[in-house]
């Protein structure tokens, strides 16, 4: 099953590249342009969601309120993380930065990827396929992760003792079982969730498009945002964290006392809106670019 999927993905990209170079579109090959087969479409639904960021209530650190959030459109997301080989094709095309860190096996997840790298890959893949690929928002990621989404609420404890919250977070992160070692594992090692998404919460954390926010929580539970910093993005996986967008390896040490993601990787969502057929048609008519 997995082998078959890999083969088809490889075929799709291999065919997409010569196609882009051809000035006259080849007919009948459009079906392989978009990797439909590796995408999973989730029907609209409702999730219990806590916003990502740093929040305070009456001047003290607090958890964002847990809210029922409705996802009102179908969500189409990659069944698995982008692999090292897939990313390498983008860098070979000159569209993605080359990753300086030694990469794993080609058919394992691409790791050591920054948000900027992931965004460049999404832009390239969109150009290559005529689709619109992008990183998921944190909310979309949480929806797709389903039962594997890790709530990051901490005991709010004594408002006059900031150390309790740090200790609680430290213990929570320390207690979490570390999956095998940090080396990227074959696709599917960490199993599928109820939606069929592979390796959610494994040893590769995933970039989202959501910016870090700071906000205050009113007595009503309403959040008012006081700062948005898009130089820092939300990263999801076995736990939620916030990472500067050019960082490829969120290592700990020094005064960063938490437990960092073992690896940074990503998967993309595809926008399946009403204009999708038109975009795909235009892509086939488009002259060669890169």
């Amino acid at each position, binding site marked *: 099953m997995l082998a078959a999927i890999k083969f088809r993905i490889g075929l799709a990209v291999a065919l997409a590249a010569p196609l882009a170079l051809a000035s006259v579109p080849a007919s009948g090959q459009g079906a392989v342009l978009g990797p439909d087969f590796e995408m999973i479409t989730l029907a609209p639904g409702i999730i219990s969601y806590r916003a990502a960021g*740093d929040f*305070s209530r009456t*001047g*003290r*650190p607090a958890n964002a309120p847990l809210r029922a959030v409705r996802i009102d459109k179908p969500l189409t997301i990659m069944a698995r993380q982008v692999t090292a080989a897939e990313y390498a094709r983008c860098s070979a095309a000159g569209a993605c930065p080359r990753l300086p860190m*030694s990469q794993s096996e080609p058919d394992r997840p691409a790791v050591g990827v920054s948000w900027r790298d992931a965004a460049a890959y999404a832009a390239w893949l969109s150009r290559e396929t005529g689709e619109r690929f992008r990183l998921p928002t944190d909310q979309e990621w949480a929806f797709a992760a389903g039962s594997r989404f890790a709530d990051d609420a901490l005991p709010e404890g*004594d408002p*006059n*003792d*900031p*150390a*309790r919250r*740090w*200790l609680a977070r*430290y*213990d929570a*992160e*320390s*207690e979490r079982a570390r999956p095998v*070692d*940090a*080396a990227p594992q074959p696709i599917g090692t960490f199993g599928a969730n109820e939606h069929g998404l592979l390796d959610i919460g494994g040893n590769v954390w995933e970039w989202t498009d959501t910016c870090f926010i*700071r906000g205050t929580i009113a007595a009503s539970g309403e959040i008012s945002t*006081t*700062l948005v910093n898009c130089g820092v993005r939300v990263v999801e996986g076995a736990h939620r964290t916030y990472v500067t967008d050019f960082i490829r390896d969120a*290592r*700990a*040490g*020094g*005064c*960063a*006392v938490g*437990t960092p993601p*073992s690896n940074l990787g990503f998967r993309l969502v595809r926008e399946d809106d009403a204009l999708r057929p038109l975009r795909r048609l235009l892509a086939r008519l488009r002259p060669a670019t890169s």
Partner: protein
Amino acid sequence: MISKRATWAAAIALALASPAFADDLKLPRQQVDLVAPPFVHAHEQATKQGPKIIEFRLVIEEKEIVIDEAGTRFQAMTFGGSMPGPLMVVHEGDYVEVTLVNPETNTMPHNIDFHSATGALGGGELTLINPGEQVVLRWKATRSGVFVYHCAPGGPMTPWHVVSGMSGAVMVLPRDGLKDGAGKALKYDRVYYIGENDLYVPRDAKGKFKAYASPGDAYADTAEVMRTLTPTHVVFNGKVGALTGKNAMTAKVGENVLIVHSQANRDSRPHLIGGHGDYVWETGKFANRPETNLETWFIRGGSAGAALYRFVQPGIYAYVTHNLIEAVELGATAHFKVEGDWNNDLMLQVKPPEPVPPAKLGALEKPAPRHQH
């Protein structure tokens, strides 16, 4: 070399056969079971007892270990199976009697050089043993302090064995315990022993760390990396993250914690982020007055130091070498988890992060004209 070793082996065999060997000092004996760092075997801080012969058994273990989160495999050589080897605590005037064991499962000759001992290259000349041999060495603890011990089998083997993990420390306490500069007794509620290792792991053509089947297989490549004097890893207790997370060291607010830090090969500069060194024996020798209220202290390569600190605020503390590149990029970070009540007098977040007030922003954007009358 061989004949010398054979001579000593014969001498020791003779000595073991003779009851006079065990009793020549007419002192009480005490056997101590060593424990793996960062923990330290139970001991008295000050003692009213007279000098004793303290017996330790130290088994050398060559083994493959994993030294970082990426799963880098490393051919380690260890005293007692741990990196660093265990801390041995005695009192000034005691005799330390070490049975050094080199099991047949090992592949190389090893020995031990105690910086706290006098003569015979710290005991190295009298302890070189092959796989399948053991040796008993006794030395008198004549100087108080914390001291490094390490393997020194000679020539290029010496630095290689040391950077493969073969070092540890001895703590010789004054019989009446530790003192501040004015002679007042200092006591600790906990003691931790942190051994720092600089490791030199060869890489393959693609830049990936290489793994080897045995220490011997790793030797030639490792020596090349060693000569660059640029470690690939600088770690506490043998591994990146060995003293963080579930293995973080613990303390309670109000407790005095003695931190013994050794580095057998290379300089280091311990710093407790958010804390201090109340009393620091930077060069590690307790007959000297401790320095007080230090921010960072210096451990000379080939020495050990000791710092006493009373934690007065709860939270997570990082204990690093304050070459922060080594602390963060190469691994030299440990954590203390300290429970207790927060003291607002010592620190308070007066106002949480909030947007810069607009008036001030405006002032920054539109500086007042400077050349107007």
